[in-house]
């Protein structure tokens, strides 16, 4: 009854079954008005968040999207808990700018941290309103009412009861938040804090789950973009010098759509669109304005920067002079790709005066704004509906593909479904930016860190999608200034250091690759540099690296997460690199601390280094997160597991390759990621803190894991790595000295 709001139609055509989806049928049976008007609905109204149905079930309207992280289970858990409903009484609907509230984008691991309290408040307001009505109906004061599975009864007189469904059944509340609705005491939680199995899994393992890539509408065309293989410098665009439309004439039904330098092909059949896109003859101008991998880091250091002191305390120079233990070095970290396993896809139906776009955006309202400008439509004439795609891990090409499908639909006059090819996705990604970090730090004779300085160089997020750039309608998504800053939670901020200074050097991103946030943005780069410095101070002080960190932490939660991971890894104290061996294959262990935002993360890495081949093998990764109140510990364990695997992949294998003209990492051979045979054992550790507010858990142990891996290499070899990925070539060069 409260099925997702899309209608599936099965049309028999010549023996084949074609699945169609209606773009228009999106109201729910219970509230036909919902869906007819552009959102966002008023966030202070109970009806925006919740509907109670006659069958005593509830629909909760969420703004945070399911990205594979499990929040389509965890957020309803919060709603069910507050409303005293069972999980199977609470459902959700498709996220849609005409239907669901604007909770902001699903990034920065904010679903539970920011979205959780919103859902909890809304559910508590609804419960309070329901109890008011029940009180009149049952002729008993609210204080004497109790609720179980949506049945309200009078304490001591269980025969006097009424269900939520009977109280409001499908009628709107028409009530604003009072700001006074009491929320449940943590001690009384029955659902929150429990590892409820994910609700999306059964459909995902049977092929019933409708991904963005599966959506189809009647009368649609398949599209493919035609771009040079691999992006050049951001902002330089790609100019069409010559186009031979006759070159695809032999592919029946395929035709070119063009706006400025934006080129695509559309066709009735997908394979025809794919063939046409590959066969179309286009001459592009080539702009060799990139530094290439070889010139990248020198260029970043040489150019002009915008500088900002992120944190300043005490007198770092004086501290560094005191010592006696001092470290000073710099590290380099590459561009890395989001590389979703399935390339991004979108389906747009653009009419003269309105548009509906199905997209796997992390932010339906943000995507709607940019689409409106690109299409020349008023914002309230554009509707964006969310369909989960392949995991995105940050700002992959989902906005670009949504824009491209919309432009193609506008040009073709029909709905267009567009999926990127593997080379489009990898070649034109918004990569996680490259980074150069310089660190100087000192510890006193007692192993106390007395001075710490970090300077980081990287460029800003690109704010114009490729489609937008190529069409000549550069609709910016956010201010040009937006960028990741040197992050205190990955750069020394977790330690109690009297003299500390963090400086961000923002490089102008125009002569570099396109960039955006990639899971735990830049933290792996920060931590690779910073946690090696901390580790080296421990080494110089002759102290076990876990103990050294303990000595330098005041904060109980950093201490807690550090000790939790050390305990899980059965860490035994000894100085790093004290077990060096002449064997061909040596082992090492390392510890690291750091997080992305708000939470607390720690990791231990156990690795193996083959000194002849230079190959590093991660054997066992332990990752711990303290994210306050964890709503669904099973989900967080999954997240930690994913973070450990992805960090190992990024530290050992991943680097975007590019020449002076273009990106050359275009498939899984030229952009390898970790595979089964190389995958370490993973031990996830969830530090549950029922009395603390929830914070993020989707990317909060990756910084720690990056540092732990680098430190494990030192423990194994007595040598420090200064650049990642730690490929065999770089390892052998480092071992040679």
């Amino acid at each position, binding site marked *: 009854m409260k099925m997702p709001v899309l209608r599936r139609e099965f049309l028999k055509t010549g023996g*084949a079954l074609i699945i169609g989806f209606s773009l228009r049928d999106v109201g729910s049976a219970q509230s036909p008005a919902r869906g007819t008007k552009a959102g966002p609905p008023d966030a202070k109204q109970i009806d925006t968040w919740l509907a109670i149905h006659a069958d005593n079930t509830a629909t909760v309207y969420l703004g945070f999207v399911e990205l594979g992280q499990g929040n389509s289970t965890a957020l309803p858990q919060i709603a069910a808990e507050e409303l005293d409903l069972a999980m199977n009484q609470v459902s959700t609907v498709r996220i849609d700018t005409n239907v669901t509230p604007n909770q902001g984008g699903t990034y920065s691991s904010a679903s539970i941290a920011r979205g959780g309290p919103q859902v909890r408040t809304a559910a508590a307001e609804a419960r309070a309103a329901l109890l008011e009505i029940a009180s009149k109906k049952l002729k008993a004061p609210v204080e004497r009412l109790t609720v179980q599975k949506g049945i309200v009864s009078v304490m001591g007189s269980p025969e006097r009861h009424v269900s939520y469904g009977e109280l409001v059944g499908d009628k709107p509340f028409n009530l604003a938040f009072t700001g006074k609705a009491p929320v449940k005491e943590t001690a009384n939680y029955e659902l929150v804090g429990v590892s409820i199995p994910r609700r999306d899994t059964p459909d995902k393992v049977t092929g019933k789950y409708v*991904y963005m890539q599966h959506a189809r509408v009647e009368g649609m065309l398949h599209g493919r973009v035609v771009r040079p293989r691999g992006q050049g410098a951001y902002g330089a665009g790609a100019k069409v010098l010559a186009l031979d439309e006759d070159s695809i004439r032999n592919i029946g039904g395929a035709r070119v759509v063009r706006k400025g330098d934006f080129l695509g092909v559309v066709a009735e059949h997908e394979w025809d669109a794919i063939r046409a896109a590959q066969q179309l003859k286009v001459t592009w101008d080539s702009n060799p304005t990139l530094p290439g991998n070889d010139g990248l880091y020198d260029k970043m250091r040489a150019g002009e920067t915008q500088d900002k002191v992120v944190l300043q305390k005490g007198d770092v120079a004086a501290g560094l002079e005191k010592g006696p233990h001092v470290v000073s070095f710099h590290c380099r970290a590459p561009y890395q790709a989001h590389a979703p396993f*399935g390339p991004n896809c979108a389906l747009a139906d653009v009419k003269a005066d309105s548009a509906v776009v199905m997209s796997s955006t992390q932010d339906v309202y943000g995507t709607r704004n940019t689409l409106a400008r690109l299409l020349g439509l008023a914002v309230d004439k554009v509707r964006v509906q969310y369909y989960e795609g*392949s995991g995105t891990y940050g700002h992959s090409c989902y906005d670009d593909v949504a824009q491209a499908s919309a432009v193609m639909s506008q040009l073709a006059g029909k709905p267009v479904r567009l999926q990127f090819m593997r080379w489009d996705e990898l070649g034109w990604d918004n990569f996680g930016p490259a980074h150069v970090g310089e660190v100087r730090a000192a510890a006193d004779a007692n192993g106390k860190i007395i001075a710490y300085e970090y300077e980081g160089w990287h460029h800003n997020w690109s704010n114009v999608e490729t489609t937008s750039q190529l069409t000549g309608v550069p609709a910016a998504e956010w201010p040009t200034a937006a960028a990741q800053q040197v992050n205190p939670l990955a750069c020394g901020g977790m330690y109690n250091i009297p003299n500390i200074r963090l400086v961000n050097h923002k490089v102008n991103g125009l002569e570099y690759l396109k960039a955006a946030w990639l899971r735990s943005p830049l933290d792996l780069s920060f931590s690779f540099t910073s946690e090696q410095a901390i580790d080296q101070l421990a080494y110089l002080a002759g102290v076990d690296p876990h103990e050294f960190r303990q000595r330098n932490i005041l904060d109980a939660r950093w201490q807690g997460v550090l000790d939790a991971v050390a305990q899980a890894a059965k860490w035994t104290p000894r100085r790093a690199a004290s077990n060096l061996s002449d064997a061909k294959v040596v082992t090492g262990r390392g510890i690291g601390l750091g997080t992305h935002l708000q939470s607390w993360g720690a990791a231990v890495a156990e690795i193996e280094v083959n000194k002849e081949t230079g190959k590093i093998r991660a054997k066992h990764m332990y990752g711990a997160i303290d994210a306050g109140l964890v709503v669904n510990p099973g989900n967080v364990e999954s997240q930690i597991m994913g973070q450990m*695997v992805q960090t190992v992949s990024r530290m050992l294998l991943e680097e975007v390759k590019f020449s002076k003209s273009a990106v050359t990492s275009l498939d899984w051979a030229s952009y390898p990621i970790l*595979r089964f045979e190389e995958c370490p054992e993973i031990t996830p550790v969830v530090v549950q803190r029922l009395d603390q507010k929830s914070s993020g858990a989707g990317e909060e142990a990756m910084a720690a894991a990056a540092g732990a891996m680098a430190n494990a290499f030192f423990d194994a070899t007595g040598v420090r790595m200064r650049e990642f990925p730690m490929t065999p070539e770089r390892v052998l060069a480092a071992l040679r000295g």
Partner: protein
Amino acid sequence: MSADLKIKVNEREWKVASAPDTPLLYVLAGEIGLQGPRFGCGLAQCGSCSVLVNGVETRSCVTPVSAVRGKQVTTLEGLPKWYASQNKLAKAPDLHPLQQAMIDEQAVQCGYCVNGMIIKGSELLSKTPQPTEPQIRSAMNGHLCRCGTYPRVIRAIQKASRTMAGIA
């Protein structure tokens, strides 16, 4: 066009409208409307589009549809039936034991790769009912996952193996 090309998918015969050199994937997804096999790279590098052809895991993105003429194609949707016929069960279960094990082990995150994981894992279990962990890793090595679910996929295959042997 090849009005006479017919293929057998999940024990049902389909008349193919696409040209015979069209990759199988676009017939399964476009003509038949199946959601198991899906595009990942188009280069046979990732395993997203995997199906079983006569019980052998095959990358449908690079296999011309004409190549499966006269063969049995099984997709994720048809696995329970295929499992039943392999094991001479009177009735197909709701789920292949590996599908159930993926749920039990909560092995899925975004789930886009899960088609290939289950197809390849089923092939492995049909040939090697009690695989060792190195055998599992080796068999699965051509299937990528970006969310990092490998450890739980391994556990799910081990669990399905026990279920199938009746030692769950």
